[in-house]
């Protein structure tokens, strides 16, 4: 009698397809997955504990480092939570700027996710194409806050400063001659809005390019169609949100259902899938990028027409203008108190959620009236998605596990917190 035993395979934590530091313990019968046990926490930095020891504003940069593929969206949820606790609302221009940068972030995130998803399952070219457009959007980030990734641009009460009138430009170097410089800087001569308008003009064409690479690609379809099918009922029960839920055919989008920022003012569609497999989720993400592009265009048009303040004028929450601070005792005191002691947030608890590119990102904040949070719980979208890995991967091949990791759009900064 031959004894047949299941084989246990350890995938990760240093596996290129593990999107960071996922350790997956797979129980295999031949090449078929019988059970998957994801081990997470290898990137746990204790953000929630750290936030309890920082003032409310000091935690904003921690939010960037959660999901480091969609930085500003994380900040947005956090700022909304603080604003809700304080009972204030950001000025309208700030809300439009936030909407615009949320959508830029969504494009950034989806480009990253589609590129690396393609890379994981054998479509090498995709990431080269998507990173080309990501570079432009990173420049938009840089123009507005000085950092390419960890922005800390959204603040409780608005955004840190208004949109800049100039764009950072490429400089001459050994590798770039006059002609190349001229081509590269062509769209950067005007303001940030001009640059973004130029970008949104050419981005739909870029999306078409991505689609020619993947949508009808036979190998891509073989690897994604019918893989990781989730029924709508299961998707709800498992706590799925975002494209993971919409891929299963449920038209649920917080931007529409529980609007925040300026989403009730802009026009966009919510793409949904039909079969709930990896391919449908891919199509959803692709369509979402086109919708985001549409929203960015509407925001640009509005922002051009409507100048105004971008942060509340309440110096208990937002710092006074630098010039005023230098010449006015009252403002100097406000500035000092704000950056040493911080905002005093009234007692209470709130949950603020936004439609993050990956799903619902929520911040549950409890304040006991101090200058620091009493408790911050970050509800990351990837966490319940990865928790469903066991259920989704059962009966699939090992190679499909990689496709599942790609479709879940996992980022460990976000899951491990």
């Amino acid at each position, binding site marked *: 009698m031959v004894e047949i035993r299941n084989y246990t395979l350890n995938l990760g934590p240093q596996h290129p397809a593990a999107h960071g530091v996922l350790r997956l313990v797979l129980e295999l019968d031949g090449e078929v997955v019988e059970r998957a046990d994801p081990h997470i926490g290898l990137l746990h930095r204790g953000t929630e*504990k750290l936030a309890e020891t920082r003032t409310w504003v000091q935690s904003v940069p921690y939010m960037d480092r959660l999901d480091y593929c969609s930085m500003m969206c994380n900040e947005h949820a956090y700022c909304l939570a603080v604003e809700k606790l304080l009972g204030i609302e950001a000025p309208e221009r700030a809300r439009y700027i936030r909407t615009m940068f949320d959508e830029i972030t969504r494009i950034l995130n989806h480009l990253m996710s589609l590129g690396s998803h393609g890379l994981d399952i054998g479509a090498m070219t995709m990431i080269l194409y998507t990173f080309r457009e990501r570079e432009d959007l990173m420049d938009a980030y840089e123009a507005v806050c000085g950092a390419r990734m960890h922005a800390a641009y959204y603040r409780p009460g608005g955004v840190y400063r208004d949109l800049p009138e100039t764009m950072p430009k490429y400089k001459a170097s050994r590798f770039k001659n006059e002609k190349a410089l001229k081509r590269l800087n062509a769209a950067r001569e005007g303001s940030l809005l001009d640059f973004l308008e130029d970008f949104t003009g050419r981005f739909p064409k870029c999306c078409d390019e991505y689609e020619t690479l993947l949508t009808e690609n036979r190998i891509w379809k073989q690897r994604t169609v019918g893989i990781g099918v989730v029924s709508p009922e299961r998707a709800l029960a498992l706590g799925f*949100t975002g494209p993971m839920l919409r891929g299963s055919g449920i038209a649920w989008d917080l931007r529409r259902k529980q609007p925040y920022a300026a989403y009730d003012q802009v026009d966009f569609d919510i793409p949904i899938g039909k079969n709930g497999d990896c391919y449908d989720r891919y199509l959803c993400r692709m369509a979402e990028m086109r919708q985001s592009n549409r929203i960015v265009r509407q925001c640009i048009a509005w922002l051009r027409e409507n100048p105004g303040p971008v942060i509340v004028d*309440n110096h208990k929450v937002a710092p006074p203008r630098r010039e005023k601070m230098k010449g006015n005792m009252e403002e100097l005191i406000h500035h000092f108190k704000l950056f040493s002691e911080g905002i005093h947030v009234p007692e*209470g608890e709130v949950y603020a959620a936004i439609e993050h590119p990956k799903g619902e990102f929520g911040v*549950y904040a409890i304040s006991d*009236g101090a200058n620091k949070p009493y408790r911050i719980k970050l509800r990351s979208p990837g966490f319940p998605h990865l928790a469903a890995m066991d259920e989704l991967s059962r009966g699939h091949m090992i190679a499909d596990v990689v496709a599942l990791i790609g479709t879940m759009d996992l980022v460990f900064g976000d899951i491990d917190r």
Partner: protein
Amino acid sequence: MSARLDLLSKVLRNVFGGRLASMAMDRGELTIEVAAVDYFEIARILHDHTGLDFEQLIDLSGVDYSAYGGKPRQGKRFASVAHLLSVTHNWRLRLRTFAEDDGFPVIDSVCDLWPAANWYEREAFDLYGILYNGHTDLRRILTDYGFTGHPLRKDFPVSGHVEMRYDAEAKRVLYQPVTVEPRENTPRIVREASYGDVGHG
């Protein structure tokens, strides 16, 4: 939104009557508090009742109330807070229950109702040491293999208890007591109620 929440609170009052320990509407959010013994049953009704339809458990987290407001706490210490969402009715609800025993906090698991609770309860167990009765796989999730203590409890120092270093002689990674001193740059201050109010000064 608030009209919808009024409707929800009415439905909740009809369905549960006096079984809720408290119900509060604050900043456009509805919170109900239930006793630990009723927790599972009430969660089941919230999930199954056709007028409520909370299909999704969005979030579940532990909270340690022992240092709340900077004063020694009267009352129970550990709570489990669940955020529920109904996609059908587009409403949210916060459901809180306190564990009876501070030394050995036990709360019923809601994994059978919402499979999403599985990892959230593991997390709350890991970070707060709340035990979920009926959970089939209550292992640590975020902290290191072999970790001791529950890091988000208020009596756990931010710097932790042990640190890791590579020992060249032993040729392996060793754990040793932490050498960093915990320090606080900005003290935690609770001011009088009107201090720093928005619109004040």
